[in-house]
């Protein structure tokens, strides 16, 4: 049996982190200031794109398509349906529309995905990237599991990584919430649905 044993935050690591943080606290604002240049919102050409159709409360068809692509990387389609087939984007649209904070976060998040498509791969839109390229962008946004040094590197190299982190965390959480409270999500994992009113009269039926 495997026993999970996470690494611990030792005193040495702590002192090292403090020293590094002190140094970076001087460097980062300067670098960040310069990185904010050239951040004009770009205009995406929409004519040739195959955008998602449907009625949205908040998202534009372009934004909805970008979100649909991103969330299909979080719960992908394979032999079973994923977030895309479950129509998560439509539910998310309603959730985002109900909160000014979420509207701002998603708007900035989508802009950041396009910015990264251009900055990293020199493409106009996140939609222009192939699967692996999209995954790479989302990994930067996620950044969990990355070393502290690499996070600092990303912070200095790309603008908006902090917002991106918040955006990805929210997108992941909401995608998961919508998917696993949908009938399609239940079917994928073999769940029968809410516990009541049918209950589980078969709870003790097993070969043990």
């Amino acid at each position, binding site marked *: 049996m495997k026993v999970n044993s996470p690494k611990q935050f030792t005193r040495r690591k702590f002192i090292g982190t403090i020293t590094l943080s002190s140094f970076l606290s001087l460097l980062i604002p300067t670098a960040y200031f310069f990185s904010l240049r050239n951040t004009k919102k770009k205009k995406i050409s929409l004519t040739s794109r195959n955008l998602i159709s449907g009625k949205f409360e908040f998202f534009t068809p372009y934004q909805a398509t970008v979100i649909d692509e991103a969330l299909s990387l979080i719960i992908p389609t394979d032999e*079973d349906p994923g977030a895309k087939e479950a129509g998560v984007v439509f539910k998310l649209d309603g959730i985002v529309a109900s909160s000014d904070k979420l509207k701002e976060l998603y708007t900035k998040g989508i802009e950041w995905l396009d910015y990264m498509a251009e900055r990293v791969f020199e493409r106009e839109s996140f939609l222009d990237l192939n699967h692996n390229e999209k995954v790479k962008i989302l990994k930067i946004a996620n950044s969990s599991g990355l070393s502290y040094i690499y996070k600092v590197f990303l912070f200095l190299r790309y603008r908006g990584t902090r917002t991106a982190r918040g955006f990805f965390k929210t997108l992941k959480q909401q995608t998961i919430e919508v998917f696993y409270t949908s009938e399609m999500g239940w079917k994928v994992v073999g*769940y029968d649905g809410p516990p009541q009113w049918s209950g589980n009269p078969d*709870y003790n039926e097993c070969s043990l």
Partner: protein
Amino acid sequence: MSKEKEVDVCIIGSGAGGAVVAYALGRAGFSVAVLEAGPRFDPIRYHMNKKEWEKNPYPFGGPPEEKAKNLYTYGIPEKLNPSYEYLRSKSKIRGFYNNTDRRKPPSIQRVKGVGGTTLHYQGEAHRFSAYGFKPKSLYGVAEDWPLGYEDLEPYYEEVETFLGVSGTNQNPFKPPRGPFPHPPHELSCASKRVKVGFDKLGLHLLPNSLNILSRPYDGRPACNYCNGCYYGCMMRAKGSMDVTFLPKAEAMGNVEIKPNSVVREITVNKHGRVNGVIYFDSKKVEKRQKAKMVVLSAGALESPRLLLNSRSSLFPDGLANTSGMVGKFFMETIVYAVTVLFSEQIHSYKGLQIDSRAWDYNEPRKENSFFGGVVFGVSALDLLGPLRYAKSLAPGWGSEHKDFMRKYFGHAINIFAIGEQLPQENNTISIDPEVKDYYGIPVAKVTTKLSKNDLEMLSFMSKKCKGIAEAAGAEEIVREFSSYDLSMISHMGGTCRMGINPNKSVVNSYCQSHDIKNLFIIDSSCFVTQGGGDSPSLTIHAIALRASDYIVSEVKKGNI
């Protein structure tokens, strides 16, 4: 301030203690007013039948304006003993739950509502063992209760019959007894799977005794094994107080329940007898309820808080506190749990929250490196649906996440242990004068530390739980929760302990204040010890019935 008609008895709190007293005294013809701080809940409106139930399964959180204000404060968290680092709580996907060198304060789940904490509890209905009442006489530690198992036995039986408790009397670790009113629930597939490990270690995983119906009774249906006991039982198969004692009490006509009534102070007359309470109604309007007798049943945290906040020239240190013992000997819950994955489907989300227990260590053993009782169990706890698996157990995102969900949904189960914390005078509930709640009432301050005995007990629990998991053939441990670094308080006790000596205790064996004869404190705050890891509710019911008999008898004699 508006006054209300004087009643014979004002009961503060409608949980495991207050509800039973309301029923028993109502039956004896007393006029009773029950002041409950929370609202009424309608079981049919709980969330377990909703499509999105997993997003917000817990209905007992209370109104946002109250939640936003302080509920209690916590003393300076204790430094963790580095010798027990291996007991840290951790998760495969999250890492350590507490990365600091101090214990994380508890998030105490206090349920305000008609029915009190029984709305939320998992329905365990345990009689304490005989040892539980006499640890000092039998083992020379802690303190004896001023009553014994034999004093409570008839009341245990009465309350089990009233509620329709299910269980087996084939339990070699408990005093001999007759059959339960209803047969035990059969173990779930998950529990049967884990039982293999218990068996290999020579431990006896037995059907739990539960206040959850195994067959229809008293107008309530049998359980349908939705496993949502602690999110409120929609079926009413769990005998929480709101569907058992309280409706019968209200039907008598002389018992009135007043929800959303938050008591600020218990008042006394010039002779030093209690004469009622001052409380806020749902509109935050201050009111007075006059009463010939007051029964305080607000739990081990709120009861001492109210007594200590009820200061007057006659009682400058708070009510019932000439001994200085109110708030002392607070006992928290010593818990250890591992979440394990099995390779085969065990549908662990189906069944009852805690359908089985192993009482092998319910009494102290000489070979243990600690003193006190420990009980082991199996439970899905929070892992009741795919969303919880996705958030708590599944790694990352993308294919890795989806593959985990398909492979392991229904395969995870918790093996856990609960132990008793020995009473320590310095573990206390006091008043934090600087911090007030939504109603402007100073809040309780919790101060609790683990002793060496607690740490040794946790160490034992950890080894056993992991041993059971391994012996059962579990694939992997993916979470560990431990009281070592997370203070998890579910079963609180102490703070108004009962005893014979008025200088060392707050109430007598009938829960009557030593200082004020018409004041009773009937909840787990009067517990002297915690009964070897058993759940407290049935014992609260039993002492409430016993105290009620005493009240009726003493009133008849003209002694109160």
